[in-house]
């Protein structure tokens, strides 16, 4: 099992306006949540850590083993221990069951073995009764739950969630948050989440990674971070988020310090 994930001096230049440049050391157990304003590089960092995207320099180390970052797709063996749930559920034009079973099929697991696992995962997200319908008939909330089930069924060493409840209604958000919480409590796997919802970060996370303009500004215990962020950038971010939410649902209108 992978117990430690490190990114050492990774650099990724996109254009003259945005560059990612950071190092991070993540261990199994706590749930890490990456927060920061739009364009700060949160999702990019997840894609790099999950070996989907190459970097210009630096390296990613999985459990003391450095991996080639010039063509990260080639690290199939390690990539299959990592799963990233994208912010937008992209489902294949097939049945719910086939979507959920895809990752297990890729790993060469036979249908007689994966059938029960898939049904268990679908049951966990409340989609067991829809196993035979086409994914086009799912609502956006159901689609996102299926995307989560499709990843959980693999039982990866590292689970990454990129805004798992973005644009979902409160009911579906609550379902997904509960699944994440349960998963965190029962497994000792590495879990990293990106979210824009500060109340979610506060209620689910153990450690907060605050990013700004492609750099990691703070890595702090969740309690301490929400009690009093240590940098001016984080304070400014909190202020802006608080104002944004007040003009919206007002669910996180509270200032945290």
């Amino acid at each position: 099992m992978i117990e430690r994930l490190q990114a050492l001096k990774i650099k990724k230049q996109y254009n003259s306006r945005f560059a990612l440049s950071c190092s991070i050391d993540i261990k199994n157990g706590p749930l890490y949540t990456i927060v920061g304003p739009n364009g700060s590089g949160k999702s990019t960092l997840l894609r790099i850590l999950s070996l989907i995207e190459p970097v210009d320099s630096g390296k990613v180390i999985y459990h003391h083993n450095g991996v080639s970052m010039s063509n990260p797709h080639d690290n199939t063996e390690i990539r299959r221990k990592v799963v990233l749930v994208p912010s937008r559920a992209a489902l294949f034009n097939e049945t719910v069951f086939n979507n959920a079973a895809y990752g297990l099929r890729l790993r060469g697991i036979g249908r007689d073995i994966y059938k029960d696992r898939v049904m268990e995962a679908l049951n966990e997200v409340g989609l067991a009764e829809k196993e035979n319908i086409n994914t086009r008939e799912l609502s956006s909330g159901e689609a996102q739950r299926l995307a989560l089930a499709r990843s959980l069924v693999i039982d990866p060493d590292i689970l990454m969630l990129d805004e798992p409840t973005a644009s979902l209604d409160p009911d579906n958000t609550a379902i997904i948050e509960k699944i994440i919480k349960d998963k965190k409590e029962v497994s000792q796997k590495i879990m990293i989440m990106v979210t824009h919802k500060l109340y979610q970060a506060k209620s689910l996370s153990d450690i907060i990674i605050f990013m700004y303009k492609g750099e990691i500004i703070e890595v702090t215990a969740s309690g301490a971070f929400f009690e009093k962020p240590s940098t001016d950038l984080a304070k400014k971010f909190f202020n802006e988020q608080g104002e944004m939410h007040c003009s919206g649902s007002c669910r996180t209108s509270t200032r945290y310090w």
Partner: protein
Amino acid sequence: MDFLINSIIKALKLIISIDPEVIGIVTLSLKVSGLAIIVATAIGLAITLLLDLRDFIGKSFTVTLINTFMGLPPVVAGLVIYLILSRSGPFGFLHLLYTPAAMVIVQVILAVPIITGLSYAAVVSADPSLRFAALTLGATPLQASLKIIRNSRYAILASVLAGLGRVMAEVGAVLIVGGNIAGYTRVMTTAIALEADKGDFELAVALGIILLAISFTLNGALFWLQKKDEKK
């Protein structure tokens, strides 16, 4: 008007009576075009996969070339294959000219650009987040491409049908390389052209009706398959 109605009635009688000549022509047409489309589909999908999977110098040029060849005039294709397979041509020693094999070859050449061009367009226009999702779940780039192709299966099937429609309706190329030899290389389209030229409209209309019926059946089957899958 009476002439047209009489021709259709006589043609229908010819079909109902299961005329051996009609059966022979239809069977050969289906064999030649069926084999050509199987080979063309295999080649077309392999090229689509390669184009999807690899970036290489000249890729845009290759795609443009394929799209250009989608409109390749059949007589030009027929002429080129004729020159290649003729006794003095580079493959003359194979003695394939005026055989069904030569007709299959020319039909493959006509169908491959259509199947490749339309399939690649379907794959390229697929939602990029699907490929991303496949990769995040542990797919290799090859497996992700295959997943996208599977996800675009109806557009690809439609491209195969377009290719089949092209080769089954084609006259010039098969006439040049096949020679329209009765009982050997005479297919529906060349027979229709010949019979119409002779003024024998019964057989021409009968074959025309069968050609349309085959096209309708294939398109109906695709539509049925699509609807059946949508319900899953």
